């Protein structure tokens, strides 16, 4: 993506910073984290989205050189995969509530280790790579949702069992909607990515 103007980038960056700090305020955290659904399906995705939008503001040549130095798209996808999976562990959710260190780790790792690597990797991924990330993510979401719905035990000590079940349903519904949306993008021809993963680092435009 070419920056339309540095003015725009500065405003966007400022907006994202404000949103990030807003999410970090005790009031917002208390409200978001009071329910499992809001915690997992609103607060955490928002942190990732902030990371994604912020990373897209970085200069293109800078993104390219980071990618080139750190071995291309695959390691970045793997980093995002590990980091996002970690925060899906019930134990990590509990820890974020009870341990300030874990909470800080969450606020830093979601934008930095999920959003940022995805942005960098995405531009190099063809439809196969993107399809792999999408189908992997969607199926993980659906299966996790199902596990939350049918789990015979309360997986998080900090949340009500009803909350766990409704979070599970939201995940399953979300997975179905995401899948339909992704199929829809294939129908209109979007989401394909570059034809070949370019290795020389010139980079094609972001989808």
């Amino acid at each position: 993506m070419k920056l339309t103007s540095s003015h725009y980038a500065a405003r966007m960056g400022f907006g994202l910073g404000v949103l990030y700090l807003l999410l970090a305020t005790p009031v917002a955290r208390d409200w978001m984290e009071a329910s499992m659904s809001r915690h997992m399906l609103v607060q955490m995705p928002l942190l990732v989205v902030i990371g994604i939008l912020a990373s897209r503001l970085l200069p293109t040549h800078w993104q390219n050189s980071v990618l080139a130095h750190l071995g291309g798209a695959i390691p970045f996808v793997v980093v995002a995969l590990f980091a996002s999976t970690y925060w899906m562990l019930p134990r990590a959710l509990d820890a974020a509530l009870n341990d300030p260190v874990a909470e800080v780790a969450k606020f830093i790792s979601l934008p930095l280790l999920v959003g940022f690597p995805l942005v960098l990797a995405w531009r190099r991924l063809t439809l196969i790579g993107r399809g792999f990330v999408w189908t992997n993510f969607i199926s993980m979401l659906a299966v996790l949702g199902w596990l939350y719905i049918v789990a015979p035990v309360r997986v998080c000590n900090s949340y009500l069992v009803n909350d766990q079940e409704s979070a599970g349903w939201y995940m399953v519904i979300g997975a179905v909607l995401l899948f339909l949306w992704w199929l829809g993008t294939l129908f209109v021809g979007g989401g394909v990515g570059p034809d070949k993963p370019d290795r020389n680092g010139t980079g094609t435009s972001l989808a």
Partner: protein
Amino acid sequence: MSSPVKRSVVITSLVVLLGTWVFWWGTDGFTALTAETARRVEILRSPRPLPAVTLEDQDGNIFNLQDYQGKLLAVDFIFTRCTTLCRSMGMIFKQIRDLIPPESLGRDFQLLSISFDPDHDDPVSLKKYGQTYGADGKIWRIARVPDKAELKSLLEAFGIVVIPDEFGGYEHNTALHLVGRDGKLRLISDIDKAVPFAEQVVALL
């Protein structure tokens, strides 16, 4: 590192190694995916000292948790208005007590049900709860922690998280706890494992 492919392979492997290590570290070697399991695994590995708290039992007697030192103590957490799990907890505690040789009861092993709801649970309701399950008030006492700060530190030490539900009651992690003769929490087990729990106690007598 010459070719980009080689670099990609090396870095990906490093990332996978590091990621696996983080998961290993964060789940106690892939054993504890939930905070509840983690709590149990950790207690088994290193028994945890408990804070000094003052309790009040169903007859209004004031005593300390430390008074039990030198004996094995089974602890569970309840609130008397509970209509679900705490009721079966009562039955389970009764079952455990009946599995222990009578000569050890009181002398070497006691039971304690602690209410985390001191506002509602006065000695009268504690007594009523105890009578429902045949607690004698000596070998098996029902007690509350009147001081809020002490209650908080006790719950924290045990790893009990209590959250209000939408019906005016509470949801909390329910388990059987065993405090050793040294006054340290040494075992936490599932409430459907009453028999193995009792066997463990008998082995330690």
